[in-house]
Each structure stands twice: as C-alpha cells, then as structure tokens.
C-alpha cells in the first residue's frame, strides 16, 4: 500500500486536497444553518411564547417580558399532572402492545414461511394511513359501551359481556393497534437487511429457533426496535384524535387534549400551551438521550460485503397458526374498523335500535359521498395534499439522507449537533409547533406564506426526526467495509454514496419517503395555521367535518383518503420491493 502525503502532491492536487478539507466544515455549517431555520428558529419562538405573555410577531422581541408564570401555573395544576400521568400510562401501555405486535408481524412477514406474507405485509400497514381522529371515531362506533356495534352483536347473541373502549384500556388497545406499523416498518426493514449467518451459527451450535430469535435476531436489530419503540411512544404522546374520541367521554384527559383545550378556548392560551409543550419536550429529550446511551459504542452492522438472502424459517404446520394469528390481528385492526367506517360512510345516521337495524338497506346510500364531492373544497384539498405530500417526501427525503449519512457514516466535527437539533421536533406537539411556525415564518420574504410550499416546509421540519431515524437504521446496518472498498478503488465520496450507499439503503429511503408522505397527508396541527383558502389540505377539511358533528361525512372523506393513500402505498411498496431485490442483487 502506498502512502501519499500532502507534501508529495503536485500543486493542483494540493489545492484540491485543501479544498476538500474545507468541504466538511462547509457541509456541516450548511446543514446547521438549514436546521437552525427549520427547527431552532421556530423553537426559539416557542420558548419565547412559554416564557412571556406576548406574541413575538405582534409585540416583537423588544417587548419580551420574561415570566415563569406559565410554567408555575402548569406545574401547580393538578389536572395537568393527572393528564401527564394518563398520557404516560396510555402511551406506555400502547407502546408495549405496539412493539409486541410490530415485532411479531415483521418476524412473520420477513423471516418465516407463513403463507400470503405479501398480503399480510401490505394489510398490516393500513392502520398507519388512518388519521388518529378517524381511528378514534371508528373505535367509538365499535366499542362504545352503550351503542357500540360490537355490543349490539353481543346483545343479539345473548352474551352479557360488554366492550367499553371509552376507558384507559380502550386507549391503550387502540394506540397499540394503530402504532404497531411504526415498529413494524423499522424492524421489518432491519430483519430484511440482516445477514442470516449469525442465526445459522446459533442454530448449528444447538440453539432452538426461539432461543435464536431472542438471543441473536432481536438483539441484532435492537437499534430498529428501540427506534420504533421511541418513535411510536413519542408519536402517541402527540396524538389528539384517539384520546379526544375515546378518552373524553370517560373524562380521561391526556396532555394533547389539554393542549388542544388551551389553544381552542377563547381566548386561546398559547403561551401556557407552549409551556406544556416544553415539558413534553423535556420528557422526550430524556428518552432520546436514553436511547443513544443504550446504543452508543455498540456495532449493529450486519450488512456486509457478502451476498445473502433473508433466511426464511420453515414453521411446518405451525405456519397456518401464524397465518391465523395474522388474520385475527388484521380482522381486529383492519376489517372491523373498516366495517365501522364503511357503515358510517354509507349510512344516513348511526342509530341502531337493534341488530336487525344494521341490515336495513333503506338506511344506506351515497349521500355522504355526494355531499363530500359536492363541496368545492374537496377536490382542491385532495390535489393540494398530494402536491404537498410529494414535495415534502422529496425535500424531506433528501434532507434526511444528508443528515442521516452525515451523522451515522462520517466522523466530521459537528455531527452530534446536527443529530441533536434534527431530533428536537419529535418532541413538540403539532398544535403548538403550528403556531411557532406561523410566528417564525409569516414574515419570510418572497410570498411564501399562503402557498403550499410553506406547508411543505413545515412538514419537512416537523418530520425530520421520523425520517432521519427511519433512514439511520438502514445506514447503521451497512458495513463500513463496502464504502472503504469503493474508496480504495478510487471512487470519491459522492460516487460512493451514489453507487454503494444509496442502492443498499434504497428500501430504507423509499420507506422513509413513504412515511414522510403519509405523515404529511395526515398532519393537522401545523396545517391549521399555515393553510389559506387556496392551499387548504385534506386534514383541515377532515377536522371541519368532524367538528361539524358529521360522522358520516368524516367517515366518507377518510375512506377517500385511505383509498388514495392505499394506492400510493401499493406503488411505493412495489418500488421498494423492486429496489430491495436490486439491492440484494448488487450486495
């Protein structure tokens, strides 16, 4: 091996070398400036709001009157403490269930010979595309103690037992059901990219399939499990729709419903809401720190320079058992709520005198769909949403790739700062960050305010952590030796990224961009403050229908939204599968 020193380089190469040395700090600086604009500046507005009584745009920074009253009020309020406790119980329980379900499903789909895995994989992602509000409404239709469809069926069957989803158990179950796909996405992608030789070694050494699963497989994909756990927990903490629909009737308040109250009341108490949000950020920061501490210093690289295919465990006749379990899960999570939503979308009113009334064909029709499509805002909102979703997915995907690569694949100075700043938005509830974006960006020159671009910008900023975390797990699994091989062969950094990293990380990149698209389509909190009459989006219209007490139209519009997302998911899944196969071939 020849050692080349700078002194030995000709003058032009020396210049190139010193220019290259400048690239790293410039790159890091550029990313930090971008993140400052997208994250720190709105955050500053939020802190400003929490620590004063003023609105930074109206009163200006000059009139900043620092006051800790909001914090002291919030901390002294026993109802906030109760809401905080409820949130921790509901989200903690929900996360435990989501991890169990998500992990189980990814294992079934990726690593076993359970029949119809492709179908199970696709169907199990459906809950992800259902807006939380709609999920809450669907389960209130099913599980209300008085009028729930499940209870009407039980009554008809002469069974005394009654479901009650207006309870903490109901919240935990629905959270667990609906946020399992977050865990699934992370763990399935990690399992798919995992070299099976370690598992084979375990089995050769006499370990049973289940021992291997718990001592080799799951520990190896620990970053993905932890990332999925953390993300689903934090996302649950920020969800409003489910606790609003299921918790409110039982007087169970959580932090988001409390924050919503603060922002929706007259007069709105944004400064107090900002104080609650900062407390929430504090909790999340501790969790992120804990995750990094657990993962630091450990290598999880399992994708090396060796060709492999994910190993499939032959379950024998038990494969029908796992298939049956998958069907039961799909029935609970997909079929039942879909039936409830379909009934609500096609039925004039949701009053059922008895079980037979469910089948009264005269009560059904297209009235809610007609009303929805009669509204001129419907098509406008669909078109705007698709545009915003696509812009967000592309811009956010590129930014997340840049951040993820810099943080996980390089040793440049400042990468920890990038990691930290890009993680912050995960902790801020949408309703509060929405007003922070408005405060921060309304004064931007160039007429950005009032266009769909400002919405896309807000979504990119808001979902950086989700996207980066989804991508980072893919990066962490690509062994450094592959890039080093490319460098030794004379490839530059960009060329290595384009020919080695990007193709190998493509399933992760496509998954992250899909996630970003879905999150953008569903996002309500930041949309509510930044949309205008020309840039209205589906989430805003859906809230209008819900707030108008139109369960039928809410259900009809959410079915439309689900179909649109389902079609797009099908396309990306197909693309992802193609690229996964491509990656396996090139690996």
């Amino acid at each position, binding site marked *: 091996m020849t050692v080349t020193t700078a002194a030995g380089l000709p003058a032009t190469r020396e210049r190139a070398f010193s220019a290259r040395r400048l690239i790293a700090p410039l790159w890091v600086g550029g990313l930090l400036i971008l993140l400052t604009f997208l994250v720190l500046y709105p955050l500053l507005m939020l802190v400003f709001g929490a620590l004063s009584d003023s609105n930074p745009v109206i009163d200006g920074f000059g009139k900043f009157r620092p006051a800790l009253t909001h914090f002291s009020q919030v901390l002294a309020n026993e109802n906030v403490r109760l809401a905080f406790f409820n949130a921790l119980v509901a989200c903690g329980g929900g996360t435990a269930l989501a991890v169990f379900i998500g992990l189980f499903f990814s294992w079934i789909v990726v690593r076993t010979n359970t029949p119809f895995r492709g179908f199970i994989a696709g169907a199990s992602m459906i809950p992800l595309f259902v807006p939380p509000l709609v999920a809450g409404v669907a389960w209130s239709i099913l599980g209300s103690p*008085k009028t729930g469809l499940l209870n009407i069926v039980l009554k008809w069957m002469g069974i005394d037992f009654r479901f009650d989803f207006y309870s903490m158990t109901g919240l935990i179950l629905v959270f667990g059901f609906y946020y399992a796909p977050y865990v699934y996405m992370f763990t399935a992608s990690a399992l798919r990219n995992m070299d099976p030789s370690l598992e084979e070694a375990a089995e050769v050494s006499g370990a049973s399939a289940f021992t291997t699963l718990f001592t080799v497989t799951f520990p190896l994909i620990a970053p993905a499990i932890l990332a999925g756990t953390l993300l689903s927990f934090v996302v649950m903490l920020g969800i409003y729709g489910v606790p609003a629909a299921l918790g*409110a009737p039982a*007087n169970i308040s959580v932090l988001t419903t409390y924050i919503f109250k603060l922002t929706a009341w007259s007069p709105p108490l944004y400064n107090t809401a900002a104080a609650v949000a900062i407390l929430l950020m504090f909790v999340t920061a501790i969790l992120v720190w804990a995750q990094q501490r657990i993962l630091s210093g450990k290598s999880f690289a399992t994708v090396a320079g060796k060709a492999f295919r994910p190993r499939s465990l032959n379950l024998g006749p038990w494969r029908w058992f796992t298939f049956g379990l998958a069907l039961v899960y799909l029935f609970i999570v997909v079929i039942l709520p879909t039936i409830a939503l379909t009934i609500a979308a096609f039925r004039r009113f949701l009053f059922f005198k008895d079980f037979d009334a469910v089948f009264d064909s005269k009560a059904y029709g297209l009235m809610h769909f007609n009303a929805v499509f009669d509204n001129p805002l419907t098509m406008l909102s669909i078109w705007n949403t698709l545009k915003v979703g696509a812009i967000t997915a592309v811009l956010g995907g590129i930014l997340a790739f840049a951040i993820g690569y810099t943080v996980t694949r390089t040793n440049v100075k400042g990468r920890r700062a990038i990691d930290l700043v890009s993680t912050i938005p995960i902790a801020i509830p949408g309703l509060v960050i929405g007003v922070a974006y408005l405060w921060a960006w309304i004064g931007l020159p160039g007429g950005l305010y009032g266009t769909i671009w400002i919405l896309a910008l807000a979504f990119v900023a808001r979902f950086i952590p989700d996207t980066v975390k989804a991508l980072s797990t893919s990066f962490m699994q690509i062994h450094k030796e592959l890039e080093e091989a490319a460098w030794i062969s004379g490839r530059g950094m960009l060329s290595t990224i384009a020919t080695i990293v990007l193709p190998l990380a493509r399933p992760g990149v496509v998954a992250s961009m899909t996630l970003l698209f879905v999150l953008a389509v569903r996002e309500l909190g930041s949309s509510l403050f930044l*949309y205008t009459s020309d840039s209205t989006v589906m989430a805003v219209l859906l809230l209008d229908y819900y707030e108008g007490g139109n369960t039928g139209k809410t259900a009809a519009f959410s079915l439309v939204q689900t179909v649109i997302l389902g079609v797009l998911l099908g396309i990306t899944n197909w693309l992802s599968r193609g690229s996964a196969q491509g990656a396996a071939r090139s690996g």
Partner: protein
Amino acid sequence: MKRRTMMTGIAGAAASWALPAAAQSEFGPKDLVDAAEKEGALTYYTANFAETEQEVIKAFNKRFPKIKVSMVRAPGGQLITRIKTEAAAGKLAADVVNHSDRGLMLELQDMFADYTPPNAADYRPDALVHPKFWPGVTLGWCIAYNTQLVKNAPKTWMDLTKDEYKNKQIGQVVGPSGGTTWTRIMFERQVLGEDYWKKQAALGITLYPSGAPTSDSLVRGEVSIAPLLYNIIYTKIVEGAPAEAIFAPEGVPIVPYADGIPKTSKSPNAAKLFMNWRLSKEGQSFQIEKLGNITSMKEPPMLPKGWDPKVIKVWVPEFKQFESLRDKWMDDWNKTYGYRQ
C-alpha cells in the same frame, strides 16, 4: 313526515328570497354592487362550521354570481391567533371576519373598518357590542332529544333537573368550551336559579368538549337529551335523524356573532356587499330556514319551527357581565359538574 311538518312550520317562507334582481337596493346602492363585482372576489374568515358557511356562500352567489368567495375556517381561538399574527405581519388576507366571541373581537376593533349595514336600525341594540361589528350569524340554544329513546320528552329547561332523566341520559357541552356555552350556563344561573347547576349535576351528566360530538352522540343514542345550539341539530332533523328539538319557554339564550371588515381588506366593496347580504332579510331568512340559525333582528323575517313569539323570548347576556362574571362562574361550573380543567 317530520321533515314536512318542519317545513310547513316555518313561517313565511323567505318571501324576499324569490324576488328578482330589482330588490338589490336592499343590499346597497348600485354603485356598491358594480364596484364589488369589479373586485370580483373576497376572502372570508370564519369560526363557524365550514359546511354551514359553504351554504351561505352558495346562496350569496345565487344572488351575486360574479363574486367569488374563498373561505378560511378555524376554531375560534385559533382563528383569532391567526388574524392577530397575519395582521401584525401585514399579511391579513381576510376581507370579512365572522367570529362568535364578541369579547375577543372587541379587542381587535382598531383593526376593523367602520361599517354600517343599510338595515342597521332593524337590529336589536343588545346584540351589538361595537358599531363596527354586526351579527351576521346568530345562534340559539334549544333542548334536543332522541325520539327513539325518550318517551316523555322534556318541555322546559327546568325539566332537565328531573329525576327521570338521571344516569347519564343528559349530555352537556362543558362550560369552558367557548363563548356560546358560556352564554348558556350564564342563562341557567341567572334565569333558572342559583341551584340549577347543582340539581342537574346531581343527575349524572355526560360531558362533551363541544357541540358537534354532543349532537352526534345524541343521534347515535349515546345520550338521550342534550342542550344544543339549534343549528347543530336542525339540519340532522331535516335529514331524518331520530331527533327533535324544542325551544323552552323560560327563554332561548342567543349568541350574536361579531362580524366585521378589516381595514386592510383588498376588496372592501365586495366585503361590504357580502356583509349587507348576510345581514339583510334575505340573508337572515336563508340562515333561519336552511341552517337553523336564529336572528338578532328586532322583527324576525321568519321563525323557526315551534317558535311561538308570544311564549318564547330570546335571552341576550348583558355584555359587561358576560365579560366580568366569566372566570368566577366558570370555575364554579367546573366544580359543580366535576369537570377537570
């Protein structure tokens, strides 16, 4: 059948609604109409339900098809924040603002232009908080019930304290949900008695964060009876929902909105015409007949079904008390109903 009874019950079906364009003087001079049509568009900020206001826009466009109305809708508090922030940044897009909280709008009075509708004298003085703001929308509280579940329907507000409606049969919107609910609970304490809340709370009440989920729950049968803003349940009744609504003889608390035209309006003539039309007999009749609104006009151009003007009186909160009593009474209400704020 119910639908027919309701429709026949509506008195004097919008006579002016069928009038030809010659009646346009009701909405302002011809110059105003010409100038408004030349502007051709306006942006309408509203805290009312989007669907309801879409219908208002459609009806306005039947009369003035050359003026395109774009709508921005957000819940009350959020809309105010947005208006304040946009205005401070010099980017307020609204030409007309429609808001239910008169107190909050009053704080923004400097932001609004002087405006008086042609029929200003027709409006009740107690429904006005400032000469710049006018009640384009007025909502009123009724008692709604599920006809499939309630055998002996309540007829008065006091009936809602009776033992026969105990055990979560009654649903209520929580007091702190906004200005409309505050109007109702103020009425309950001032008109129905100091112990009204206590008696009712003792029955066991299901609490809801706002009117929409309450009306939805009533139709679904989650609760059997609920005080509701008439417009939330009216369209459902017309469509055939298993529900009915009555106006109680002790009084109908009404909520006049405060609507105005910002000084920064880019289409001030279109904005004026839109306000004029909404405040006109035609506009008010349309909202009463089609949307279940009430009106703040001294002589209502038409009456909702079951509204006997000899028996039923509207109740408007005294505005000073509306502001001054709020915090203390809200606190009392929360304690009485066990609502955790």
